[in-house]
């Protein structure tokens, strides 16, 4: 098992497209019947790579003509655009079209990418790598902070050759509770959870844990 320390792998930076490149993306998107409409004059288009895909990357459109600004993120191979709508299906669709290059090193970034774009009925799932750096830790009572520290189980990654899947033991925040669980990542990118155990309840984040740490990096 690889023990993963609380340091995150540096995320690739967003790269802003020039006007011509952005125009091409907007043209491609506008040709789809179900496409959201973006202002040509006031939309910024940016992209960044993903370590676990060879052909697909992230493409982010931000319309600055609205207040607040409106942003949608797509998975794209430069021809097809799959809108990330908060469900798992768009990611699984890209996984099918561009087989994942999962390794013990990038399976955690894949999970974090997945969780930062997919919500459950109780909201976002957040994988805690280091309890001392958990978002909003300061907003919890001393007793809750102590509870987080005491209950935290370090992240561990193993490859189950029999199932052909990665198994990640981790501490997660979901629906106001801290829990331990094994996250199973199949080779095709499908994710499931096993051995879920409640560690601590009444731990509510006041805002999205991804708002300032991950998504818009």
């Amino acid at each position: 098992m690889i023990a993963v320390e609380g340091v995150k792998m540096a995320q690739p930076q967003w790269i802003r497209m020039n006007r011509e490149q952005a125009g091409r993306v907007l043209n491609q998107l506008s040709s789809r019947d179900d496409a959201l409409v973006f202002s040509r004059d006031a939309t910024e288009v940016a992209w960044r790579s993903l370590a676990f895909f060879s052909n697909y990357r992230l493409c982010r459109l931000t319309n600055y003509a609205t207040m607040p600004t409106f942003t949608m993120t797509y998975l794209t191979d430069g021809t097809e655009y799959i809108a990330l709508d908060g469900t798992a299906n768009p990611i699984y669709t890209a996984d099918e079209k561009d087989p994942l290059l999962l390794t013990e090193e990038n399976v955690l970034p894949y999970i974090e990418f997945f969780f930062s774009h997919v919500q459950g009925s109780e909201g976002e799932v957040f994988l805690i790598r280091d309890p001392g750096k958990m978002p909003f830790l300061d907003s919890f009572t001393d007793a809750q902070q102590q509870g987080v520290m005491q209950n935290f189980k370090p992240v561990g990654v193993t490859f189950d050759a029999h199932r052909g899947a990665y198994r990640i033991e981790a501490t997660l925040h979901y629906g106001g509770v801290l829990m331990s669980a094994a996250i199973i990542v199949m080779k095709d990118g499908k994710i499931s959870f096993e051995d879920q155990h409640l560690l601590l309840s009444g731990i509510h984040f006041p805002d999205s844990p991804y708002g300032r740490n991950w998504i818009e990096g």
Partner: protein
Amino acid sequence: MPASTDLNDVLQPGQPLPADSVMIAKALEILSASPHGQQLANFVEKKNIVIKIAGTPEPVGYLPDKKLVYVGFNRNNAISPGRFILMLAAILREAQQEAAGIKHPDLRAPLEEHKKVSMAKHEDKIWYICTIACELHDQVAFSDYKFLDELRKMGHSEALDLYLRQEGKS
């Protein structure tokens, strides 16, 4: 482990929702039961406003064009009918502002102008949906929608309290 926090529900599709056209028609019908909501429903009809529902990670209203509005939400974590109606009312009010010539300043306009105009537009929009929520809340037929609670969940608790005080309803 409470069933609601089973992580595998992340991967399940949400409860089946009605067709988009049904949701929009029903929302406009309910809005029409309130005097201020009726104005918005009339505006949609007279100005041929196109209303669309989009899959977005977070609940959002989006007005990319003065005749096109979107209400977006996450299909895994669908919003309540009451919230959908209030979100639709808010973005339609914004479309009404644009149609009346009250537009967001140009991107290169001074910050002060942005603050002044955008704040005024936002205040007007929030006041408008507070009014609609109260008008619908007062009707027994819509008590299950819990419009005032929904408004608070949307983060407008302070605005609602202020509105209720100003209207002598608190």
